[in-house]
């Protein structure tokens, strides 16, 4: 973890209510996909956690949905403004366990982190498939960015307006995979756990206080006892979680 000031380079809507934020500065503390950053939004007491969507030598990309005051204030910030940030939080995904054909499963705010995870798995020479779930066709974001990397992307929408009608598990049935990585709402986790036929990793979200393991705000019960989502996670294996 590193505390640093990042500079807003771009902060643009990509679809209604979803923004892509590119921040430049020292992001050397990010070392693997699945980690997150905490951004201090002016006027808010607590920082806001966001997954790393992508990163390079010069900066980090975050894709966020405006849901409340903090994300709305973030959306109003302009290029050139500085943001006080904690960079490189959390354990991140372990790609060494993926086998040859990993499957990425994501919905909602779980989609962004799949971009850098897909990049990493592809760089390791693996064949990557993804199932991305959305409510409706106009909600779809980042699916093309992930497809262009060379990922076999399957879409689902709840109303059937694009891809398979239903939820991510409706598209998982016929897929052949060696391992899975998933992030999304809790109901999706339960459904994935119900149908998946391999081991896998789940990236959890929790209401956070600190984001670095000090306040015990984000704790979950696991087979190995209480764990902090922010510091011991956010990524946990299927076997560690209590179902």
């Amino acid at each position, binding site marked *: 973890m590193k*505390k640093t000031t990042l500079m807003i380079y771009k902060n643009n809507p990509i679809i209604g209510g979803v923004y892509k934020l590119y921040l430049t500065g020292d992001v050397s503390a990010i070392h693997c996909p699945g980690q997150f950053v905490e951004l201090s939004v002016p006027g808010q*007491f607590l920082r806001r956690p966001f997954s790393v969507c992508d990163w390079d030598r010069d900066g980090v990309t975050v894709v966020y949905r405006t849901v409340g005051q903090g994300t709305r204030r973030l959306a109003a910030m302009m290029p050139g403004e500085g943001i006080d940030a904690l960079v490189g939080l959390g354990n991140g995904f372990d790609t060494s366990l993926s086998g040859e054909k990993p499957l990425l499963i994501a919905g909602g705010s779980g989609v962004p982190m799949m971009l850098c995870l897909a990049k990493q798995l592809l760089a390791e020479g693996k064949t990557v498939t993804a199932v991305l779930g959305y409510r409706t066709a106009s909600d779809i974001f980042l699916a093309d960015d992930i497809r262009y990397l060379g990922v076999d992307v399957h879409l689902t929408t709840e109303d059937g307006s694009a891809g398979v009608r239903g939820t991510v598990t409706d598209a998982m049935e016929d897929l052949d995979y060696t391992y899975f990585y998933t992030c999304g709402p809790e109901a999706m986790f339960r459904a994935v756990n119900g149908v998946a036929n391999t081991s896998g990793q789940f990236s959890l979200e929790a209401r956070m206080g600190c984001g670095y393991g000090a306040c015990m705000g984000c704790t979950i019960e696991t087979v190995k006892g209480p764990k902090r989502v922010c510091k011991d996670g956010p990524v946990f294996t299927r076997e560690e979680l209590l179902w």
Partner: protein
Amino acid sequence: MVNTKLSLCGIALDNPVIPASGTFGYGHEFAEYYDINILGSLSTKGATREARFGNPTPRIAECAAGMLNSVGLQNPGVDAVIAEELPRLARVFHKPVLANVCGFSVEEYAENAAKLDKQPQVGWLEINISCPNVHCGGMSFGTDPRLAAEVTRAVKVVTTKPVMMKLTPNVTDIVSVARACEDAGADGVALINTLMGMSIDLRSKRPVLANVTGGVSGPAVKPVALRMVYQVYEAVSIPILGMGGVQSAEDVLEFLLSGATAVEVGAANVADPFACKNIIETLPAAMARYGITDLKDIIGGAHHG
């Protein structure tokens, strides 16, 4: 040159800045980021007899200029604190610490305090009779002067170390509770713990916290905390550990002027892992700015003239 050194119940402090219980873990997370030996001391997470998961999540919420928590004393139990957490802390922090003690009965307070009393690292016992997040115990001891005195006496019997009673602001008259603790032999009082509050999520139209209520802390509570420290200072002659919304060196000076001998920093650590470090580093300049050369000289200064 300014002097930031003080003494709290006879134990020397390099400076008055102490991370508050529950907001600093057992120190290791912060020791990864900076040398925590710059701190005056630190207060450990409240220890109970049994291991506790705490309350269901969500147990953190935000409010204007502060936060709410309903963590509910998650801790591995006093024996594990002694066997694992304190030795790990000793590797990164070499000064006496405040051991924060909780309990669900007078006997449990005494039992936990007796165990922590034997740890050489423990400088003071900070007895939390004020946690608003646990039912059947906790705060009820701090809301009744008679019970507060009873816990104080029970703990004093089992320890030779200074006993700081940590008081709740969720009372009509905090002064009477502070007096009761002093009369029962307390060596100091620590105040304030969090103020009971709540928050509503407009999207779900339900309370944000699974526990419905939680403790409010952070800058939002500072005026209340300062007022209480000021009132208690008028009424007791034992040292006061002041807290509630401290996030800058100026805040430290305000608490000392109100009557605190040292301060704890809570919610500020949750928002910024370097909060205490920044306060300590900026304290000498803030003192100089207000013409203060020795912190000792300003304790209770707001009461004179």
